[in-house]
């Protein structure tokens, strides 16, 4: 019989190898895109014969990408902020209050998690046409608010659950009114949850594609829609260069969020001891 320690060591190596292969699968596309972005030739080839930075310049100068980026910033700023206010207040109400239709409203606002984005997009496209709203930024922002609300609700709700209410009781017993307790005790304590909820909402909104494809027009198209249209028409590495910038930017944001907010806690995957 094989001794137990050897057996466990072999098992450990097999496990490590499996995880490394899976991590390689996760990282592979990003790595390949990075190589492709530095290829000097306009046609894809591996490995690239000559290297250059020129596609980064092209991507930054391409008008549709620039327009999409700024449109995306407008939509993201509005939708994540509105979602934070609406979702933050409602999460507080769910946690503390009793009111009619509570679980019905909560269920409706959580449901975009399982309703396909193309259905949500089509719904708002038809609704906008029915109420005579033009295909401007308003439709896009409303659609994005609905799509990111579940994430904000969850993020704020989790921090509310972890909040020690005795601070609020102490403030109230010392004579602070409800508004004062809320602004000077509850809000500061909730700040990490609010920031992470807002950050989640902003990243998701900036990247949202399928529903945006339905509700945006040529004038309001966001960056992912512009990128999609580009991929369908052109094959040069500009898109690869833009993807690299996208990946680096997003990874930096996530690392930042992890360092300051603790992603494990936000995602609820901290090991319990």
């Amino acid at each position, binding site marked *: 019989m094989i001794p137990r320690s050897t057996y466990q060591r072999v098992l450990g190596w097999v496990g490590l190898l499996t*995880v490394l292969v899976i991590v390689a699968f996760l990282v592979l596309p990003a790595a390949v895109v990075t*190589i492709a972005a530095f290829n000097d030739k306009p046609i894809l080839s591996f490995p690239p014969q000559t290297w250059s930075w020129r596609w980064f310049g092209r991507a930054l100068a391409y008008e549709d990408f620039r327009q999409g980026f700024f449109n995306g910033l407008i939509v993201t700023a509005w939708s994540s902020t509105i979602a934070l206010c609406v979702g933050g207040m409602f999460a507080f109400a769910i946690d503390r209050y009793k009111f009619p239709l509570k679980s019905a409203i909560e269920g409706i606002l959580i449901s975009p998690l399982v309703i396909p984005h193309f259905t949500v997009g089509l719904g708002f496209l038809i609704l906008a046409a029915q109420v005579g709203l033009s295909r401007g930024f308003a439709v896009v922002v409303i659609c994005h608010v609905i799509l990111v609300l579940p994430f904000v609700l969850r993020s704020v709700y989790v921090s509310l659950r972890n909040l020690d209410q005795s601070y609020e009781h102490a403030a109230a017993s010392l004579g602070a009114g409800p508004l004062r307790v809320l602004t000077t005790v509850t809000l500061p304590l909730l700040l990490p949850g609010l920031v992470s909820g807002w950050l989640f909402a902003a990243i998701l909104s900036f990247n949202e594609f399928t529903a945006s494809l339905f509700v945006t027009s040529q004038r309001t198209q966001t960056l992912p829609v512009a990128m999609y249209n580009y*991929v369908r028409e052109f094959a040069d590495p500009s898109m690869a260069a833009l993807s690299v910038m996208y990946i680096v930017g997003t990874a930096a944001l996530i690392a930042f969020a992890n360092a300051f907010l603790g992603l494990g806690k936000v995602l609820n*995957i901290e090991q319990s001891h």
Partner: protein
Amino acid sequence: MNQQPFLRIFTAPATLCAVGFVAAMVAVLQYSLRAYVPGSLDPGGFTLANFADLLKPLYARVFLDTVVVCAMTAVVTLIVGYPLAYALVRVEQPILRSILLVIVVTPLFLGEVVRTYAWIIVLGNNGFINSLLMSLGLIGKPLQLMFTPFGVVVALVHVTLPVMVIMLAAGLSHIDRDYSRAAESLGAGPIRVFLTVTLPLSLPGVVAGTTTAFAWTFSAFATPQLIGGGRVNMISNLVYQLGFSSFNFPFAATLCVAGLALTALVLGLLQLASRPLRKIEVH
């Protein structure tokens, strides 16, 4: 004293959002029951003909393909995601954990388009895999990976993997380690501990992850559109085509409604099948 001081102010905006969303979904439902008037953006009168059209072989085929692709993606994602989730929860060093977490979470926020484009470069005829295999002399001419169900499923697994890992890890991290320690101290080997203690206790996370992976794949549009290239069609692609190529919004809406019913059915069955698991208390 008022026990619920901000009730109205705090619930009004959310209620408004819920009403808006319900209105949008009712709009889809309403359109699904209207006749298509070719050449016009306005729908005709009320009819059930759209739902009868769903049974045409062309459309029934797309539904079948969609379910097969979703099911395959969900199962493969589960198999690939489990070891990673396990590692994420059990790794002790904080730095290694953080790196692993960022690698897992970043793709979640990259968006479908960037990831799909990356897979086009990996799978294409001049792409990374074919170039690598050809330069190694393993194949003479490029393998056809693009425009195949295989390529679509590989890319979709990559898209759903982060969310699966997060859900599995959430389940795994809330299992009390004392259970496995007790099994170990009673003489069970690592594989036995895993199969008889950890795996059964993590099943609620498995159900949650698989359900979400299925729903997400169902929602995918860019991946089947660009990697499937018309040869792998999912409901999402058909809805877009009908809407924006032939302006047949009523039938696009019908497909959405049927899609929702199908998702609800599959997710309901999954919930039902996992009912015995509710007995497992996870702290």
